[in-house]
């Protein structure tokens, strides 16, 4: 029921719409219910051989009521359905806002597709519950009570006779509801089996093709598909039985009215007008009766969906500003790592990714990080903007533990250029200006020229207004990396973190970029991670990492002289460069 608690908040927010919609529903129901009554009056006049004027009077009333009903009904439906859409809108916004607060670790443990389907399908299920669901939930009892009261006031015995098949109807509804739910669950499950098969087949397409497995894969799919077809047909059979049974029972009530009513008309204690009115009321009740099971399934589906959404909404952001955050005003002294250790949650073996890392990055200085893949270089870079939090030790900015700082303030200090360049599918201009609200053309140009993106822009027919594809697919790897560098430079942050962010740029261009960056970096603080020695060799201090620990540190010359791992890497680097020039 917890999930309903949160829903109530949304419902309350639109209580006016719901209340007004509810009143309109009441108005509509009133008019709907009185029309059969007036029909009865009109028919009674015909039966008793009255005047055409009186009949015309009732016909006019019915016509007017119908028009009024049309107007009010429009409002009732529009108001309630729109309220449902409003809740959908709020819920989607809230969910998006919450997702933005969740740390990287959350996204690494979930698949994008899975999250997407929650946000899309589950929200829509909640919306259906709060729009059409609410409408029918209000309407059905309203119609029943109204009709029952009017029918009873006409003739008690006739009402009881007409409603005699209703227990049968309720029994049938209850009996089939469970079976339909089970069958539709089976269908859903088989559908997810089917999609996983497709998913796996497509992910392993190179193996499928290399071993000519297309036929076998198709056979397997066809078998699963056949299963799905059988399960769907089982569901269709149940649904196919329920609808006509409901209709049939409704028809049965009409038959009772005609038969039993007819006998009583012959006896003279009932009018044909009463029969007509009874049939009209039963017609009105046909829809709420048929929709009975459907209504419950809407609510059940909506509640299950809300529960899943709650799971996300109730996930506490593991990384957030503390309640009394220290504001960040520029950088005065620098950044310091003190005895930092870190373990990735997803690493089951518990082997630390970083262990006992100590170094300082004073203002205006630069630190270079080198080491093999998996040595922990990127992890160090990711800890500074708190994409992850340290397990042990602390990272200090101007002597303050970063976990005590305002998260926003901290991140505004840092220009982080990630290894995997991510661009949004919009114009390059908007991508580069992503970090700021207003950017002048000059600032953009400056960043573009440092990142050596200017030559590429000349080739693009639309220059900065070129729209890049999803994740920037229309650009080459090097172009993407240089664009992400420019994006960070536009922010003009006091600290620049380059997380192997020029790996796809050729050595020549990289050298040019680093040359250009040097003047830009003069008064900046910089953490450079690279697999190329050339990128870090001018750093004030170079740290060599291996399996999460610093194994060598010092300046380039010191390290080369030492003849250790760094010197070996440097030697390899030179060979690679030679090779590239052949």
């Amino acid at each position, binding site marked *: 029921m917890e999930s309903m608690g949160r829903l109530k908040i949304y419902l309350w927010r639109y209580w006016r719409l719901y209340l007004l919609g509810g009143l309109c529903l009441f108005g509509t129901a009133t008019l709907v219910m009185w029309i059969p009554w007036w029909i009865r009056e009109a028919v009674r006049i015909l039966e008793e051989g009255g005047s055409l004027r009186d009949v015309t009077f009732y016909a006019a009333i019915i016509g007017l009521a119908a028009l009024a009903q049309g107007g009010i009904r429009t409002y009732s439906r529009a108001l309630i359905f729109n309220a449902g859409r409003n809740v959908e809108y709020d819920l989607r916004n809230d969910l998006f806002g919450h997702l933005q*607060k969740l740390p990287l670790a959350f996204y690494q443990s979930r698949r994008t597709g899975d999250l997407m389907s929650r946000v899309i399908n589950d929200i829509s299920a909640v919306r259906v519950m709060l729009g059409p669901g609410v409408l029918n939930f209000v309407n059905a009892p309203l119609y029943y009570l109204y009709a029952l009261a009017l029918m009873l006031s006409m003739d008690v015995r006739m009402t009881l006779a007409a409603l005699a098949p209703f227990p049968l109807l309720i029994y049938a509804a209850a009996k089939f509801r469970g079976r339909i739910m089970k069958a539709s669950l089976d269908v859903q499950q088989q559908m997810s089996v089917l999609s996983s098969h497709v998913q796996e087949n497509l992910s392993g397409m190179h193996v499928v093709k*290399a071993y000519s497995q297309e036929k076998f894969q198709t056979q397997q799919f066809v078998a699963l598909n056949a299963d799905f077809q059988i399960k769907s047909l089982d569901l269709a059979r149940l649904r196919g039985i329920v609808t006509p049974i409901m209709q049939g029972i409704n028809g049965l009530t009409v038959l009772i009215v*005609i038969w039993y009513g007819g006998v009583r008309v012959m006896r003279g204690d009932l009018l044909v007008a009463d029969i007509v009115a009874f049939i009209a009321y039963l017609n009105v009740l046909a829809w709420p009766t048929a929709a009975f099971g459907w209504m419950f399934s809407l609510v059940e589906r909506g509640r299950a969906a809300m529960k899943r959404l709650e799971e996300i909404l109730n996930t506490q952001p593991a990384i957030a500003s503390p309640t009394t955050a220290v504001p960040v005003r520029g950088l005065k002294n620098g950044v310091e790592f003190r005895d930092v250790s870190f373990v990735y949650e997803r690493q089951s073996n518990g082997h630390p990714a970083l262990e006992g890392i100590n170094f300082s990055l004073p203002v205006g200085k630069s630190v270079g990080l080198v080491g093999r893949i998996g040595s922990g270089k990127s992890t160090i870079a990711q800890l500074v903007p708190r994409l992850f939090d340290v397990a042990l030790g602390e990272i200090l900015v101007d002597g303050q533990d970063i976990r005590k700082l305002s998260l926003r303030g901290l991140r505004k200090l840092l220009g982080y250029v990630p290894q995997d360049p991510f661009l949004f599918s919009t114009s390059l201009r908007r991508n580069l200006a992503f970090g700021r609200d207003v950017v002048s053309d000059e600032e953009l140009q400056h960043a573009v020229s440092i990142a050596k993106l200017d030559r590429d822009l000349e080739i693009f027919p639309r220059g900065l207004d070129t729209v890049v594809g999803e994740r920037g697919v229309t650009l080459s790897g090097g172009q993407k990396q240089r664009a992400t560098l420019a994006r960070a430079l536009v922010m003009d942050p006091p600290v620049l973190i380059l997380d192997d962010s020029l790996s796809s740029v050729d050595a020549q261009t990289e050298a040019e970029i680093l040359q250009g960056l040097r003047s830009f970096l003069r008064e900046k603080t910089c953490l450079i991670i690279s697999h190329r020695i050339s990128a870090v060799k001018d750093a004030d201090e170079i740290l060599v990492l291996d399996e999460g620990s610093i194994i060598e540190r010092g300046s380039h010359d010191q390290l080369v002289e030492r003849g250790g791992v760094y010197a070996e890497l440097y030697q390899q680097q030179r060979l690679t460069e030679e090779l590239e020039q052949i």
Partner: protein
Amino acid sequence: MADLSHPEEILGKAYDLRLIRRLWKFITPYKRLFWFAMLLLPLQQAFGLAQPYLMKVGIDQYIAQRDLGGLQTVGLLFLGALAGETVMVFFHYYLTMAVAQRCLADLRAEIFSHVQKLPMSYFDRNPVGRLVTRTTTDVDVLQEMFSSGVMTLISDFLMVVWIVGIMFYLHVELALVSLALIPPMAFAINFFRVKARHTYRQIRERIARINAYLGEAISGMAVIQLFAREEKTYREFDELNADHRDAYHLSNVYEAALYSMVEAAGSVSVALLLWYGGGEVLHGVIGIGTVVAFKEYIHRFFVPLRDFSQKYAVMQSAMSSAERIFQLLDTPVTIDSSKNAVVPKPFRGEVAFDNVWFHYKADDPVLKGVSFRIAPGEKIALVGATGSGKTTTIKLLNRFYDIQKGSIKVSGVDVRDWDLQALRRHIGVVLQDVFLFSGDIRTNLALGDRSVPIERIEKAAHFANADSFIRRLPEGFGAQVRERGSNFSGGQRQLLALARVLVFQPEILVMDEATSSVDTETEALIQDALERVMRDRTCLLIAHRLSTIRNADRIIVLHHGEVREIGSHAELMEKQGIYHRLYQLQYEREELKLAVQETEPKVYG
């Protein structure tokens, strides 16, 4: 019909018609069942529409005449009609769904098997998720079209025709009065359709935009957080979200208005009926029963009109799903066996690249005139720096991609003239990242070929040094492999991949050696297995192991998409060229490490 002058409208109609015609092809195999289901429709409706007529007869002839026996007869007939209708509704629905499920299963299978034939370049461009959606969600939408879209539109139309016919049969003037509101209603519905078409399109566009934005924000969340742009992104999302809500608000108003208007028109028609019919009754022309029957017919007439908007929305989204599906089915299969494909016999494990040019993206050649020859049984190591074109070379051999210039011959025949399936059966491929399918080990080794006897699989596993760890598993060869083989170590997966090659016994082995390190014990097992797998086969290997290049007959050095050096290890080392440097870069360390390991177990204290 004024909207027909609207070009977009005409185009839309023609297009929908074309889509429906294509969908019809999937129904064709079940034509009989389909027509049988359709045949039940008029029967079902006849049973349904007989009921108001029976009411008329009952009231006018028997109740009015106080004929109890007659009333009983009418009652029984009514019961019969009711039972008939119930049974017919069930069979019609069930048979329709049976046709729908069958032809949608066919459609799903066709999409799947078509996707199997698409070239690798297609999968490079299209994300897996999108293709999954085509086979599942989009087909599901089409099912809705059957259950509540096009089928009900047909039955609604038929129903309306019936009712009009009966009304005119019963009383022409009364029919005219009862149906007086039809022209303005038709006008209103058409107005709605034109309006709604636009709004529905808007809604679809906006929901697509929200989803795209959401997907992008989720995958780029780190960037948003790093730049502290949560607020800005939220505002943008809010804008899209609000646009979407507003479009729905509008469509809700349209739908509510249409629904209410039709309901109101129904009641107004009843009022008209009472007024005119009342006069006729009072003049003794008709009985009250006729008025009652007319009232019932009016009711049944307006229900389908009322639900029109829903059905229209279903049809619209079904059409766009169908459009997407057919677009996928129309994607040409560019790599397939040619009409006169051959299977050369006897097969010689001979490979020849002759001046091969290849690019993924125009103007960016990956291979520039690559030529080399591999004799049957020869072991070739392919070396080169990253980006030199090694991986591309092996992908071309089994025709994952077609080359732009030159020729690749296997057993003396151009790969484009080969029967594709046969070609690939002769070439065993082991890639760096070994892909295992979920299922058991046996299925993974035989890749689903049920005819492979278990003895052969066990023998292959034995030769590939994989049986020792397989036998340690509780279920042995029946052990389940989890998605992508995540329950096996990298080394075990490599051993399984080698065993797979031995099961299929291809004459040519192509391998991209894994770079990820495994423990020494497993490494020894892999090397031992690899030696056996390579025996008596033509081998083309992207070498990462020192032992592999040492054991190769010849080494081909690729550099920037060109073959720069060919020869044995000793020859190439002597040459002091690219290979010499590559060796120093990639393999010398390993050699040193091996040397150190032998004397002193630990390198760094």
